[in-house]
């Protein structure tokens, strides 16, 4: 009944108009490197002061459901993840673009995003009343082990250049330790430079490592991003959409994985994206082909990072504990609207809560439909000669890198990572492990140190931690089992 009331609350012209506006704005914010969801939240929240709660959250939550798909557009087309939560999408999305299959990748991304978001929202709706004890089972030890799952992806994305991949992953982890230690409070690797106190930001790094390095490479080799002619029909896009249904079970598993990671406070969408990619690699029959343009490499991370939104709303709404930076800002929006997140939300505002579920479903679907309609034109961008496209990508990349924090040093750092990324590309060092290391490094350190302080090494004996350890061992043994089976065959 409350589910139906929630839908009725949302289905009024004003709220739907705000939802559409939100979807459009968040798509742009997602696609523009440096302008991610939290930035959009920060800009749009002041506009919601005078709105009614349903319209305000239609603009914010409904719109935000489209941000991940927006981020995947630039990841697929120009190898630059629009948000930190689309990192893994570029691993196979961009190779697909280079093969002239950008439409297929965008079609798959749009469909996986919409379905992932719907699955995440479904879990939000069904599980809110029973989730409290489950969420409380996840402390620092469990978050640490979930993050280790993410780190195992480094091995998966380093196929063909294993040692180089591990070295790149090491470098990424070490770079994540720059700045003040989360637990020790000690200033590390800053060389006395004030800018480095806050650590190395993800946006300048990924923009430099991927966008700038790609611009240098393209200007060296000439031609267009796509090395093959793009079909004039929408066949590719349809192929991408149908691929999601072909790999429906992977999409479902990745969505559930994303939802669970979203529920864990502090884990974040980047982990969901990377862990789901790693899951796709480790469960695929031909893991060696990942990184060269496998459509599953787009489906799994995109389903997971969209599903994560529904999960992330659970601790935010049910306990007032924001699971991520974006959710922290959204928490502010709840308070502005006079809604106090916590158990009271489950009793007094249940219909409103279900209207949030509908907002996610409708927002993500709308975003994907807009994306599918625009995909055909967007893919044509990859046919433009790089000599004409390069300065524009360069300008947008540096501008996005600057505007994420308004620091000029970020522009310089982007250039440094651009040169380094070109070196990595040229000498076949996989760049993905570097990003995975930077994204996950500080989460690993913070949660390991907290676990050690709270429980000592006995933290590994906690029930959920032990289950996660067994799962880790199982994942780690998959390649070995495959090898043995291969020998037997």
């Amino acid at each position, binding site marked *: 009944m409350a589910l139906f009331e929630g839908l009725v609350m949302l289905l009024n012209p004003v709220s739907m108009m705000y939802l559409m506006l939100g979807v459009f704005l968040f798509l742009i914010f997602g696609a523009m490197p440096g302008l991610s969801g939290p930035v959009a939240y920060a800009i749009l929240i002041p506009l919601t002061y005078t709105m009614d709660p349903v319209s305000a959250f239609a603009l914010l939550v409904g719109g935000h459901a489209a941000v991940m798909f927006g981020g995947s557009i630039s990841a697929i087309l120009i190898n630059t993840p629009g948000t930190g939560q689309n990192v893994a999408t570029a691993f196979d999305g961009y190779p697909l673009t280079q093969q002239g299959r950008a439409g297929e990748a965008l079609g798959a991304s749009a469909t996986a995003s919409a379905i992932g978001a719907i699955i995440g929202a479904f879990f939000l709706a069904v599980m809110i009343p029973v989730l409290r004890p489950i969420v409380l089972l996840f402390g620092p030890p469990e978050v640490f082990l979930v993050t280790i799952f993410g780190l195992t992806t480094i091995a998966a994305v380093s196929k063909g250049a294993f040692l180089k991949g591990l070295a790149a992953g090491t470098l990424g982890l*070490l770079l994540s330790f720059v700045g003040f230690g989360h637990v*020790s409070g000690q200033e590390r690797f800053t060389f006395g430079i004030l800018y480095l106190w806050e650590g190395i930001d993800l946006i300048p790094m990924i923009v430099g490592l991927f966008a700038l390095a790609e611009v240098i490479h393209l200007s060296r080799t000439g031609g267009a991003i796509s090395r093959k002619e793009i079909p004039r029909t929408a066949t590719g896009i349809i192929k991408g959409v149908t691929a999601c249904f072909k790999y429906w079970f992977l999409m479902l598993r990745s969505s559930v994985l994303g939802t669970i990671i979203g529920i864990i406070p502090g884990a974040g969408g980047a982990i969901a994206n990377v862990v789901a990619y790693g899951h796709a690699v480790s469960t695929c029959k031909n893991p060696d082909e990942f990184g060269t343009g496998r459509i599953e490499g787009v489906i799994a991370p995109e389903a997971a990072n969209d599903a994560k939104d529904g999960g992330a709303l659970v601790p935010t709404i049910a306990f007032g504990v924001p699971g991520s930076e974006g959710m922290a800002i959204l928490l502010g929006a709840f308070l502005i609207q006079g809604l106090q997140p916590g158990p009271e939300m489950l009793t007094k505002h249940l219909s409103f809560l279900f209207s949030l579920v509908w907002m996610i479903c409708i927002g993500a679907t709308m975003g994907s439909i807009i994306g599918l309609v625009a995909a055909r034109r967007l893919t044509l961008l990859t046919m433009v000669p790089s*000599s004409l496209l390069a300065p524009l990508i360069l300008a*947008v990349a540096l*501008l996005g890198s600057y505007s994420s924090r308004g620091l000029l040093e970020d522009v310089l750092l982007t250039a440094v990572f651009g040169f380094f990324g070109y070196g990595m590309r040229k000498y076949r060092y996989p760049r993905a492990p570097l990003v995975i290391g930077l994204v996950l490094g500080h989460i690993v350190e913070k949660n390991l140190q907290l676990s050690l302080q709270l429980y000592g090494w006995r933290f590994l004996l906690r029930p959920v931690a032990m289950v996660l350890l067994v799962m880790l061992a199982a994942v780690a043994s998959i390649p070995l089992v495959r090898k043995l089976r291969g020998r037997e065959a």
Partner: protein
Amino acid sequence: MKSKGELVFGLLVLGIISLFVFLSLGYSRTARFLPLVVGIPGMIFILVHLISSLPGVASRRGELGSEKDATEKKAGKGVGQKEGEPADVEAETEVVSPAWTMFVWIGVLVVAIVLFGFLVAVPAVVFAFLKFRSKASWRYAILSAAGIAAVMYFGFVQLLEVFLYRGLILILIAGR
């Protein structure tokens, strides 16, 4: 090791990881724990890679792997190339312009931003790049520069209220 450049790059990676490990030694126990746990194996990985790809070692491995390579060549694949993977881009594509020219353009753009700020530097460098390097038409170069200036001014400055850095020269002239 395919080239001197690759060796130098490998040494650069080793140097950076070693620097992190060396600096960690001076920190407190908690602060140095993970950097050392991560950094020391990382040094070993890159060292093993560098040693195993030295000409002498690589050729010995090459003799062992020559049979496999020959089979791969017969199948029309590059040595070590994965199924479905595009062949080595660097090796197979024609070089239109050396990479250092793009390094210079990026350097010029960054220096121009520092000196003149985003609103002046970005459209000016975009125009110069398109006109003089890409040999684009006047119309395309001017329209692109104007387009990017419009996006910056109306999109970032007016709509998003992002403060775009004004450049050292303007700051010196007009003050903050």
